[in-house]
């Protein structure tokens, strides 16, 4: 159970140093295994509870063991924190090692994150290029694998569609890392809310218990839940290209297609090798074996019947010309679950009061809970919240809102992604071997930036112009904020999509505190 010699050493030291209660090494080891914490976390917890029990008092100091491995943590000994960049970078480094940051830092971080998120609209505007990710569910080591496959922050612009927590054993580290990255690189990291970002759900599915286990109190869980309330409900991706950017990882031996511009769908493995490609015209398979995830895409290209609206994409506002300005490939709506019978235009999402616990019903609930299904119209959801919605609903919604695609997460798909309804909607799932049990692969979806000079909108994150549009934060493209007339009349035919499929991080790559996860079965 104790994988490392120095864990054992630290525990031994602790066992001898904490008085008056003497704890045998064996008890501590057992406790570690039983409550599923790292020795380090247990030590932190014991020290923290000791400090609570003894404070205020002069004796606090000698309760802190002298071992450097042990002494690093107590929150009370850290310098006061205002989350300067250096603090953030230090927290990020610590979280990347899958080590929780002290409670005081979490509080500070969550406070900062809320200040940031409150400025965002319910529907965040994001400019391509962007890498869209689905459920993470506390699978920290697989999140690291995701960053390896998709590129690191801030080099890659990420959009995570919720369900960061629950089920996996590292919800805390996963969510706090994503939140740190959000605060550190606000324009390169977009987080929207999933149905698990909720007080009620996290008490059933693990995040609450994990916080209690790792900190000894529910404070951190409370801080995180307060952040959940401020997460955006959706995002609109603008400026996605009809064509794929060159795949930087493609080796010279990898198959390529004659004309890159023909490729609508490309599926790569974790090493960047192209597994399958689909060309745009016929949506016929160009190369490789059929990806079951994309097998449903045969049919007419989405949006081929040119929409008549040209107002801000997603708003349903009308304009004078066909095609959406700055959006030759049409806008992409990202939301965790799906559509709601109460929402016919994206602007109605913008009107919701989102700063609350996820309600049991209503539009906000539906956006986070609903699923597409092979039905006509709307149906009852087996989940007991949200609805099922059919192809007709999606097509009408996309047409009305000038969207070429809805990207959503929420449902486990064994192949990592699944396009449905003539590629009007796609499910992206980013938790490989979900719950350490399901044997599925994961995927992320890359949308390239339109570099045809047609221009894109500056990112505004909703109503408030907080952002500088990416200038100075590593955003590519010099044409931001420029609208070009020539984009008018462009035939919208959906963005080109590159899926990177990846598997669970190999066990031996898991960091040092990784306990081997155990999945439940019926025995």
């Amino acid at each position, binding site marked *: 159970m104790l994988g490392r010699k120095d864990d054992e050493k630290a525990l031994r030291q602790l066992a001898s140093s904490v008085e008056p209660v003497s704890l045998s090494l064996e008890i501590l080891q057992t406790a570690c295994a*039983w409550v599923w914490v790292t020795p380090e976390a247990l030590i932190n917890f014991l020290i923290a509870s000791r400090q609570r029990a003894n404070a205020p008092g002069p004796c606090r100091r000698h309760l802190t063991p002298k071992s450097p491995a042990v002494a690093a943590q107590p929150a009370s000994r850290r310098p006061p924190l205002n989350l300067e960049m250096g603090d953030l970078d230090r927290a990020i480094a610590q979280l990347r090692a899958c080590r929780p940051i002290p409670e005081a830092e979490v509080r500070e971080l969550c406070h900062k994150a809320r200040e940031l998120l409150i400025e965002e609209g319910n529907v965040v505007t994001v400019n391509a290029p962007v890498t869209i990710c689905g459920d993470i569910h506390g699978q920290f080591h697989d999140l690291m694998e995701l960053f390896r496959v998709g590129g690191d922050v801030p080099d890659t612009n990420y959009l995570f569609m919720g369900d960061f927590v629950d089920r996996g054993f590292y919800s805390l580290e996963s969510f706090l890392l994503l939140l740190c990255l959000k605060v550190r690189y606000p324009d390169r990291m977009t987080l929207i809310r999933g149905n698990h970002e909720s007080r009620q759900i996290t008490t059933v599915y693990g995040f609450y218990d994990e916080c209690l286990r790792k900190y000894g109190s529910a404070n951190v869980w409370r801080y995180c839940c307060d952040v959940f309330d401020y997460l955006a409900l959706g995002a609109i991706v603008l400026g996605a290209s009809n064509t794929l950017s060159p795949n930087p990882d493609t080796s010279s031996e990898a198959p390529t297609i004659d004309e890159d511009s023909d490729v609508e769908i490309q599926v790569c493995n974790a090493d960047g090798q192209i597994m399958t490609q689909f060309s745009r015209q016929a949506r016929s398979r160009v190369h490789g074996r059929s990806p079951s995830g994309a097998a449903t895409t045969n049919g007419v290209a989405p949006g081929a019947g040119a929409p008549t609206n040209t107002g801000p994409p997603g708003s349903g506002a009308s304009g004078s010309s066909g095609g959406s300005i700055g959006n030759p490939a049409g806008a992409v709506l990202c939301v965790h679950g799906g559509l709601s019978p109460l929402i016919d235009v994206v602007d109605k999402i913008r009107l919701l009061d989102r700063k609350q616990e996820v309600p049991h019903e209503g539009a906000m609930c539906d956006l986070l809970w609903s699923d597409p299904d092979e039905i006509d119209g709307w149906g009852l959801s*087996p*989940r*007991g919240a949200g609805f099922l919605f059919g192809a007709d609903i999606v097509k009408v919604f996309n047409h009305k809102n000038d969207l070429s695609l809805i990207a959503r997460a929420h449902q486990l798909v064994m192949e990592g992604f699944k396009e449905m309804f003539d590629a009007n909607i796609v499910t992206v799932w980013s938790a490989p071997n979900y719950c*350490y*049990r399901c044997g599925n692969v994961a995927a992320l979806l890359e949308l390239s930036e339109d570099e045809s000079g047609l221009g894109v909108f500056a990112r505004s994150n909703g109503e408030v112009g907080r952002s500088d549009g990416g200038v100075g934060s590593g955003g590519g493209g010099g044409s931001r904020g420029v609208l070009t007339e020539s984009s008018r009349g462009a035939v919208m035919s959906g963005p080109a999509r590159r899926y990177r499929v990846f598997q669970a991080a190999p066990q031996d790559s898991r960091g040092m505190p990784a306990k081997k996860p*155990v999945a*439940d079965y019926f025995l």
Partner: protein
Amino acid sequence: MSASSIPNLLSLRGSRGGRGRTRGGRAGPGGPGPDAAAAHNATIQATDTDAAVSRLSAVELGYLDDPFARLFVQQPPGPSSRRLPIINRGTYTRTTAIENIVSHFLQTTQGQKRQIISLGAGTDTRALRLFASTSPVITDLAYHELDFPATVAQKLTTIRSSPQLQSILTITPNLSPPPPPPSPNSSQTTTTYQTTSTTNPTNTLTLHGIDLRSLTATSPPLPSITSTLPTLLISECCLCYLSPQEAASVLSHFTTLIPAAGLGIILYEPIKPQDPFGRMMVSNLAARQIRMPTLEVYKQPEDQAARLRDAGFEFVETLTVDAAWERWVDAEEKERVDALEGLDEVEEWVLLAGHYIVAWAWKGGKFELPGT
């Protein structure tokens, strides 16, 4: 928490016991030096603890009604025993499905003496629940539980120390030898304890401490198991731990012993080891030192059906656990169960429950079991 319960918890949590660190283990022999067979036995016995905790979780959350579940879990009450909704629903569905078949058996054999033989019963409480029920159908029932001697001895200890169980069972003195020291190695020795229902003396529960692998077509019948009674065998995730030959041999023991009186069987086992979920299941269980040799042979529902036909059963039915939920749990009950926790993981449920099967079969024409 008693010291002896700690290793149980560890064995629940996983496979960290493989480094000679097993002192004080649930049924460990105590000495150093790995004894693979004993370790395997202990692992299989630990799966029963896993099942008992799952059952308790389902009971405490209101899925199942079982006043005895708590008695067989050495763990303080509280969140530690709580399982995820998907596991609770699985425990509920499997229990309900098997109960449905058992009650069919009891109804169609009503008025005559009959026996139920539960293989690898472990801490299962079905017999206790039957005896505690006030149903007029529960009469003239000889219930037999077979498991490792150590498991049986432990169960008897629990019965002896529980006023609640003492009130429904009387241990028959003359059939009760002094409990032997628990040892997973003692596959040779068999022990038998008989108890009688206090409310209805025509109902008996007999605990047989035996290594199932000693049962063959030619081995002598176990004490008080009769060849002339309508009989229902239950293997709830038990025979799957044996080799296919051993499992077939156990079946042949009973088909030979009870040729004409009517014999039925219920199997509950995992299936589909070869798809991505199944491969992960096999590998995850292997990491806990749990092997299911029959799973590699009876991969699909059809394989399970063929296996039962080969064993001589005339009528064979199978139902995956997710199908049992769909078909055998009525709308009102579904609503009740759904309301207990809410099950968010719909896709995962179909995946997980689709990898377990309830197969049942019967022959001899003396009674019928339900259709799907």
